[in-house]
């Protein structure tokens, strides 16, 4: 039966639906979303997907080129590294380490950031300005410097570098949340809630927070790409994840030693990182312009 609308009435999509419709128009962004989903799947199911143990060293198979090279083999799709470890498996596990940890860090930073931002946004006076100033100064210090200090105190390692990156991510969330709350507080529906006698907490939990979702997603994608860049940069500088770990930046560093004879050992992990960040930025960009377009209409 053909579907036809009986009524002349127009269908008004919900804001979320509208955003999705706008987002769908941007094909590249959708491709980015698929890519993003792909990395998410890899992160979750990596033990099932990896053909080999990422740390298994096959001494007979050192530096085998990837399968697209004339002398490459099919058993190691991306070839092997200088210790005879399967690069595909290492990349898959590396995506888990780099992508998974970044995701985790962003979620943690988001919670803390929104909490602090709410505190700063809902309050006035000294408390608010204190939070602002502290965060401004943290934001002014380069991430790498924060990381260097934290690592100097706690020692090198993936976990310690995570602290540093989380600390560097929080301020953005705080600022965004605070600005958002300030903005919303001046709107009429809040005034209405206030007139109904709602407390500050109630206003935040029931009126403002539900509206923040989209802003947080956009901000989250931004933070995610920053966090991936930072984590891999620290791994690359030997300050974060250490050698045997299959973190993408650390793998890239290992690859440098043989870069000239085995260029794929830096091409493959770097490429994976690049695609990962592009897909995240595409999604973020798409979302942002979708939101912008929605607001324009």
């Amino acid at each position: 039966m053909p579907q036809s609308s009986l009524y002349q009435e127009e269908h008004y999509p919900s804001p979320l639906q509208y955003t999705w419709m706008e987002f769908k128009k941007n094909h590249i962004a959708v491709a980015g979303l698929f890519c993003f989903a792909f990395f998410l799947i890899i992160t979750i199911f990596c033990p099932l997907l990896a053909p080999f143990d990422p740390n298994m060293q096959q001494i007979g198979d050192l530096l085998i080129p990837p399968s697209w090279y004339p002398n490459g083999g099919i058993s190691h799709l991306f070839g092997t590294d200088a210790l005879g470890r399967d690069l595909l498996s290492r990349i898959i596990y590396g995506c888990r380490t780099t992508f998974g940890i970044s995701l985790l860090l962003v979620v943690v930073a988001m919670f803390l950031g929104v909490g602090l931002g709410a505190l700063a946004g809902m309050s006035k006076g000294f408390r608010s300005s204190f939070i602002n100033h502290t965060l401004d100064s943290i934001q002014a210090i380069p991430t790498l410097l924060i990381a260097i200090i934290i690592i100097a105190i706690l020692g090198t390692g993936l976990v310690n570098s995570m602290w540093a990156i989380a600390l560097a991510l929080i301020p953005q969330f705080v600022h965004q949340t605070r600005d958002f709350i300030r903005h919303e507080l001046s709107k009429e529906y809040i005034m209405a809630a206030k007139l109904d006698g709602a407390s500050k907490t109630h206003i935040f939990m029931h009126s403002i927070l539900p509206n923040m979702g989209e802003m947080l997603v956009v901000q989250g994608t931004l933070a995610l790409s920053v966090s991936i860049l930072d984590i891999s940069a620290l791994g690359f500088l030997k300050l974060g994840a250490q050698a045997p770990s299959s973190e993408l930046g650390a793998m890239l560093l290992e690859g440098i030693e043989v870069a000239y004879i085995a260029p794929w050992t830096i091409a493959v992990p770097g490429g994976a990182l690049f695609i990962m960040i592009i897909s995240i930025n595409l999604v973020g960009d798409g979302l942002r312009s979708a939101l912008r377009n929605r607001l324009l209409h």
Partner: protein
Amino acid sequence: MLSSICLCACDGLLLSKTDPNGIVYCSEGSPANFNPQLDTSGTTVDASSHQIYDRLIDFDPVTGDFVPALATSWLISDDGKTYTFQLRRKVSFHDTQTFTPTRYFNADDVLFSIDRWRLMTHPFHQISGGRYPYTDSLKLADLITKVTRLNGYRVEITLNKPESSFLANLATDFAVILSAEYADKLISRNQKELIDHKPVGTGPYQLASFRQDRYIRYTKHPKYWRNIQLTDKLIFDITPSSSLRLAKLITAECDAIALPAHSELEVIKQQDALVLDEKPGLNIGFWAFNTSKAPFNNPEVRRALGMAIDKNALIEAIYFNSAILAKNIVPPTSWAFQSDVKALSYNPIAAKKLLREQGIPENFSMTVWAMPVQRAYNPNATKMAELIQAYLQEVGIQVNIISYEWSTFRERLTQGIHDSVLIGWSADNGDPDNFYRPLLSCAAIESGTNRAMWCSQEYDLLINKALQYTDISERTYFYGQANELLAEQLPLIPIAHASRYQAHRKELQGLVINPYGGVRFGGVKKL
């Protein structure tokens, strides 16, 4: 018009290579100081021995014979106890920012240089730590009873017993001649510590400036006594990463590099502008156990661990087949080498059984210290440690790999807190004693070259006996017995004797591999 200017500018920028005249050598690390008496590390030796200093006698790098250097001739008494050296005249010391020499080199400088490490009471003995690892490990200070100045250009050294390797020791990189006049100046200025950091020698190049982890600059010694080609400037560009060194060689930022990585030798051979020299090396890479610590004080445990690793696979993975499997601690080119000594074969099952029999539980955990620098005898200790980690996992042993920055690493090794260590030794002269004594004698524990912390009276007796004879067949007999003792006791597992490589650009001429130690730039020129 504009574009043509642009093109010209680009051309100039890309292609003009109008660097000043000089040689750039990419070395692998910062020297601890500029006095090889104080440090056996190859880095320090490279930076000082043959550039800043001269010795009384030298090895001919090709034949290995003794050739005159600061001593023009020498005489050995019939009882083998007295050595008389006739010194070269009109040899000038460096004229540096801190010191202007007023006299030529003479016997006082020889006395000063030897007495500094020989006499505990010498005013300079305690400067820079008071440790002289090479001479201490050989107990040379005890061997020499006196050093006398016969006249300004004649020196006599008396030993308390004949020792066949004595002359070879005087020709090593460590037996450099310092300036006594400079030392006196420093005493009067109360700046004694400068002697090892602002060095003055007679060598072909003098130190101009040094910046830690970045570069060492040398300038030509204008009054050098040898009539050889010198360039105005010699620069050591300190580049710890071997791949970066190769990259710089390719882009002509370096004219020669230290220690090309074994994985990259093929690349160097393929490049037309580069030259790769190879020589069988007088070295040994090994895995030493800390025998002062349980359970590694048990030879059977050491044997089991040795059986658990496949040395052939290590050689393939780490040395890319540019090394040979080691059986003794001396390489096959040495006359003390014994091919019939029994080597451990790879047998993880037997190893596991033996470990359990010796009471080592499943999941026993130990440390393997991996040196952070590349050496010819072990181009990638960390990677080797990772492979060993995998092998020992199979016999139920957990390995923690430990590494520190190089000077910290060696300091802590000397303290003996390691379980086992991957390290090695490069010979400084052709005499096999140069392997046996520094590596495993009791005296070498304290001087910090005996990484196994192994002390055996029987072994010390054997290698001391070997020194009392000059006849090679008699010495071979004692070294043979020492080899057997080592094969039985296994304080260390010999892994490989690696070939020595040196890579340089075609323009650079006259650079040869010095089999007995440090690199030399005197006589090297750039076309």
